């Protein structure tokens, strides 16, 4: 398959299913410069071949939802998304089985559909398609745990008037490496809500992207991460507004603590000439709880039309506000508890947005454990 070049954006300009169409990254490229390549365990240069226990996918589906395990030749695969970098193409070239989740036209899923990705050691590649036909509604959970070196692509195809809410939890063991692309393609008046929670893993690099095939699409991308000593957690967002009157809102918040804790957040939004009436906002905030932690935050808004409804971005990385802590302490609350209250407050409003109650509680408990630990 040949190399396609997207015409406008300076970033994400390549797309191909074939890893050979991408140079092996050397770390100086814009899209790789934050990622410690030596910790990718060969995902980027072809050295990571499938081995070991891999990643086992188990499914708990709502009765209205169909889940199939299919081979590489299934016609539904690769329709919404063309890999945009070398590892994504590598994952596409190397996966053996794909999981396809289908929500039929006008079906409303009565329960969340949960896909659990359990790492059993070794190297694995994966592919998932979640397809909502017109007017369908569903909540889908991607729950990643265990240990693995894993690269995959997830395609969310949200049909006309459909509503998809996704929670993706990266709760890997300490030594896991996970590089993933999540692409959502929104039809006319489609609604997409993504909630990404990244807590575990030695290196996680997750790239959520959104494209629109018709007007009226509405995407909310929310993310939360907690980076501990030595962890590299990277989120690279791309929202490509190519249709008029669509909306997107990106809010990612992270806390970092410990030596070598490294968060990277890249937020690219493109508003193309034809995307009049676009309303978009993106925000990233990082809370540096200790010395030795580092957050790189790069919002990038490219506007090619004069007719936008709203476009903005904000990025801030800083320490706990001394004035907040002082105020709480001045009311008798001890420092450690004041700190917990403020951090909980920092994340609290985000966590409330998680659709599934038990997940909300699990994420809150995880954050509490991080704070205590």
């Amino acid at each position: 398959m040949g190399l396609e070049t997207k015409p406008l954006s300076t970033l994400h300009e390549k797309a191909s299913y074939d890893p050979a169409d991408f140079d092996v990254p050397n770390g100086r490229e814009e899209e790789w410069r934050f990622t410690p390549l030596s910790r990718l365990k060969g995902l980027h240069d072809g050295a990571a071949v499938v081995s070991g226990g891999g990643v086992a996918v188990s499914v708990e589906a709502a009765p209205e939802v169909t889940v199939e395990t299919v081979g590489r030749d299934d016609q539904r695969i690769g329709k919404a998304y063309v890999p945009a970098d070398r590892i994504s193409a590598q994952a596409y070239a190397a996966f053996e089985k794909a999981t396809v989740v289908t929500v039929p036209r006008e079906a409303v899923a009565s329960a969340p559909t949960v896909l659990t990705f359990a790492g059993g050691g070794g190297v694995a590649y994966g592919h998932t398609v979640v397809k909502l036909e017109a007017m369908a509604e569903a909540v889908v959970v991607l729950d990643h745990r265990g240990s693995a070196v894993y690269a995959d692509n997830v395609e969310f195809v949200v049909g006309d008037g459909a509503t998809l809410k996704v929670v993706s939890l990266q709760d890997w063991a300490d030594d896991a490496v996970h590089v993933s692309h999540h692409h959502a393609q929104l039809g006319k008046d489609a609604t997409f809500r993504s909630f990404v929670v990244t807590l575990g893993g030695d290196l996680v690099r997750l790239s959520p992207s959104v494209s629109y095939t018709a007007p009226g699409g509405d995407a909310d991308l929310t993310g939360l991460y907690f980076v501990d000593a030595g962890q590299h957690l990277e989120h690279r967002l791309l929202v490509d507004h190519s249709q008029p009157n669509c909306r997107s809102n990106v809010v990612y918040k992270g806390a970092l603590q410990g030596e070598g804790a490294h968060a990277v957040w890249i937020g690219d939004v493109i508003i193309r000439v034809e995307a009049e009436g676009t309303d978009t906002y993106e925000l990233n905030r990082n809370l540096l709880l200790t010395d030795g932690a580092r957050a790189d935050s790069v919002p990038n808004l490219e506007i090619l039309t004069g007719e936008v409804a709203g476009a903005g971005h904000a990025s801030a990385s800083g320490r706990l506000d001394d004035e907040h802590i002082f105020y709480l302490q001045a009311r008798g609350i001890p420092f450690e508890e004041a700190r917990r209250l403020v951090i909980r407050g920092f994340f609290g409003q985000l966590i409330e947005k998680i659709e599934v109650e038990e997940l909300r509680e699990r994420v809150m408990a995880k954050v509490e454990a991080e704070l205590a630990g």
Partner: protein
Amino acid sequence: MSTLEIRDLQVAVEDKEILRGVNLTVRAGETHAIMGPNGSGKSTLAYAIAGHPKYTITGGQVLLDGVDLLELGVDERARAGLFLAMQYPVEVPGVSVSNFLRSAVTAVRGEAPKLREFAKDLKAGMDALSIDPAFAQRNLNEGFSGGEKKRHEILQLELLKPKIAVLDETDSGLDVDALRVVSEGINRFRATGETGVLLITHYTRILRYVKPDFVHVFAGGRIVEEGGPELADKLEAEGYEAYTKASA
């Protein structure tokens, strides 16, 4: 009965000397007004006593019932019975008023209040200060008007029941109605006769509602004149000009 004794307190901010030897004793049952022009160091006194990290103590003592507060952390001072009503209460995103108040009451009393009792106290306190009950679920000070913030400070005062309250320009930015409501709260707090109040203000207006026993004029980082309530009347008529010239 509690006593707050400020002895020869000297305070600097970033190596600049602000307080130059403040001496003041506040006993339970007394209300002291500290009045002075802007920049005289009134607020520095309040924040230094509370332990704000921006202020460096370069000399002196602040004793609450014989315990030197300057040796204690910010939260320990509050638990020892000191309360500072802030001039500009900060907004704390994501921390609800009710959660904050319950945490504070638990910390100061040393045990969690019974939920039902706490809810009742909170409701009564909010009613008395004409605070909309919906505020309990809002984030701390977030989007509160100036008057709402001050009422909320006095609500905390009444719930935490400190031994000594330092009120830093609680009257600033209040309209007459809000001033009356806030003053009534302060008066309820001091009605027991077991608490002392140090009321810092620029204007005499609040003193018509909260009658002081003593008035101290603050200028150039120290107390330059002391008297009874009549001193406030004199300041009302003549302003601070005489003091600012003298200290310059």
